[in-house]
């Protein structure tokens, strides 16, 4: 399935429009997405940004996704760097 990934904060500038698409097996789950994203970042992003990915959470519009979760049915996932609101 196609996963539409939104980037936030310091990761926004890593991709045009702060978005990228990755093609994943339907059953790869959140852990599979995380691995694919890490591989993409390793090859495409500057090193400090790729390193930041290890501290990022993945989420849909409702909650944080854990590694054991299935991919969201709508194929939309957000990458959340460490937060600094307020």
């Amino acid at each position: 399935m196609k996963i539409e990934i939104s980037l936030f904060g310091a990761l926004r500038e890593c991709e045009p429009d702060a978005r990228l698409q990755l093609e994943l097996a339907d059953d790869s789950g959140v852990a599979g997405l995380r691995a694919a994203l890490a591989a993409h970042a390793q090859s495409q992003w500057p090193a400090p940004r790729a390193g930041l990915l290890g501290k990022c959470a993945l989420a849909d519009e409702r909650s944080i996704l854990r590694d054991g979760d299935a991919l969201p049915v709508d194929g939309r996932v957000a990458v959340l760097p460490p937060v600094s609101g307020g």
Partner: protein
Amino acid sequence: MDRHHLAVVDAAQGRLDPAAAIDFVSDPAFGGIDVFIGRVRDLNHGRKVVGISYDLFDALALNGFAQIAARAQAEFGPRLKLYIAHAKGRLAVGDLAVVIAAGTPHRDEAFRACRMVIEAVKHESPIWKQEHYVDGDSIWSEGCSLCGDAADGHAAPHAHDGHAH
């Protein structure tokens, strides 16, 4: 949920309004209101700041505000009224970044609810701060990772990597 006003306010479209927050959490049965206002200050870690850009994942942020409000209500009682609003986009020094207000029958709950909510908003909400300095440089703040404790949706205390909160 009309006891909670939850909002993300784009700086291009409006400003955070403490008076509206106070009005919203007012009630004839309430004796105590506590309001927290976070403003952009002119210095951080010794560097002269000219402004801050806030990035938010709006939908998740609003869902998170609702969860935080529900937790506060569970802890401080069903009558609690809460106002949670965070700015988005580019702010100048002195602009308001966040306004939290809590109204309750007695003041102790108002203070504690307001404090609990601002801590949760700062540590759990998908909000990112980029500081702009007088020398033209801009840096994204380091912040709190959501991978650990906070990913469970609890406000558990967790270690911070030396960044200011």
